[in-house]
């Protein structure tokens, strides 16, 4: 298990997280169905507009799944930012993780690590968190 992802997408996610600070930023990366390859970044609105919580708007969520189906894509990565804590899944992240096939990516905008890159990936299945290596392609 590992995640390979382009530098461009990583940078865009980090930029989005800084822009949306102090709220958590969130989104998905899509790829061709069955490929497991994250190619198309799709930032989503954090309907919770909160520094400690994120949630896709239910209407946006349905539109996302329709789009993914129509384009024969899959959700490869689900990402969000933590604003003041490390990039590790919180208890609520684990409780609500509903996509066993996705990589859950966490980034952090906490000041003590900025501008260093804290970009980490996990599988979250049945309440079990497994961190996996991330390879960033320049």
């Amino acid at each position, binding site marked *: 298990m590992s995640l390979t992802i382009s530098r461009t997408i990583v940078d865009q996610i980090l930029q989005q997280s800084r822009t949306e600070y102090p709220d958590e930023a969130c989104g998905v990366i899509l790829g061709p169905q069955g490929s497991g390859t994250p190619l198309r970044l799709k930032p989503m609105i954090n309907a919770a507009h909160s520094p400690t919580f994120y949630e896709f708007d239910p209407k946006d969520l349905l539109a996302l*799944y329709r789009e993914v189906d129509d384009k024969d894509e899959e959700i490869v990565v689900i990402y969000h930012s933590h604003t003041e804590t490390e990039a590790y899944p919180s208890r609520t*992240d684990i409780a*609500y993780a509903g996509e066993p096939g996705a990589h859950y990516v966490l980034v952090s905008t906490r000041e003590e690590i900025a501008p260093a890159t804290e970009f980490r990936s996990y599988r979250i299945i049945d309440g079990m968190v497994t961190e996996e290596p991330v390879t960033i392609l320049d």
Partner: protein
Amino acid sequence: MTTAAIEVRIPTILRPYTKDAKVVSADGADLKSLISDLDRQYPGLAERLLEDGALRRFINIYVNDEDVRFLGGLDASLKSGDSITVLPAVAGG
């Protein structure tokens, strides 16, 4: 009460209950009875959709393209040909 043949799209995380079927068929004049019928066919499924008799906060159910919370929740009336989509919320802290 008429029964309805209603298509229900099941998300990946709940497919262990439906033997991996992505789309199943169920009957019900409203969402509550549809969920009962689903649970009769796929035991355990209702428990994943309901909590203390109400829809779970972090499960979204849509009738056609509308969030069922805006259609009366469990009382939302259904008719033959409707399409139900179940999606777990994407949320966390």
